[in-house]
């Protein structure tokens, strides 16, 4: 129909070459996204390693508490083994988190 042709002609835009400035802007954005994704992946890996380490420490203290409470040298501490283990774990956790390489991240 004539009206449709007129409308299509009205909307027609001239062909143009790609806008390299805009393409470069998107490429920079994509590079930034890639860097952010790599940093996120590294952070998750670090978190997983620290979780595994913490789990190992907790398991070790649990085993010590369950299997040989009488063998622990500190008699006073063995009277409240769960609290002692928790304090030790917290101490270790702070030691891990505040070590120079961790605070320098």
């Amino acid at each position: 129909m004539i009206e449709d042709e007129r409308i299509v002609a009205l909307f027609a835009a001239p062909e143009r070459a790609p806008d390299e400035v805009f393409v470069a802007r998107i490429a920079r954005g994509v590079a930034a996204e890639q860097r952010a994704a790599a940093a996120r992946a590294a952070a998750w890996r670090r978190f997983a390693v620290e979780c595994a380490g913490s789990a190992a420490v907790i398991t070790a203290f649990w085993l010590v508490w369950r299997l040989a409470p009488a063998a622990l040298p500190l008699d006073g501490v063995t009277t409240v083994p769960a609290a002692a283990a928790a304090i030790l774990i917290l101490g270790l956790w702070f030691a891990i988190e505040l070590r120079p390489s961790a605070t320098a991240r």
Partner: protein
Amino acid sequence: MDQDAVLAGRAAAGDAAAFTALVRAHEGAVRRFLARLTRGDGADDLAQEAFLRAWRRAGDYRGAGSYRGWLMRIAWTAFLDARKSAGRREDREMAVLQQESPRNPDAAIDLGRALAGLGTRERAAALLCFGEGCSHAEAAQIMGLPLGTLKSILARARAALVARLEA
């Protein structure tokens, strides 16, 4: 498999160069669509957001439909999200069309005047079908509408455009 699908597959695997080639091929259509839709108000920022979303979701393109259509859908969604967050704005004259150096400068003014009276969905449907050469089915998919709804929106847009052109 067409060139876009090959590049899209590589982009989904993390190939930034392939994605850049897709940007180079489609930035014109996406930016023109958004510029006319927004009347130039932040169109390039929206286009950038749309392309970065496309990069993040590169794995979602399954090759059903054209890559350009998939990009247009992301651009349309980015536009709706931006409009939702910015709230409704007053209609303004479309400066962007004057920047496009059209074949006929009067056409830009006519198009601006013709589009000014259309609602957002009518404008988008007209831009996709008349401006970008999308089929009705493709435009419906881009706008996330049933085909019948798209056709009735487009019929309203067409009637309004004809009325304005003849006024």
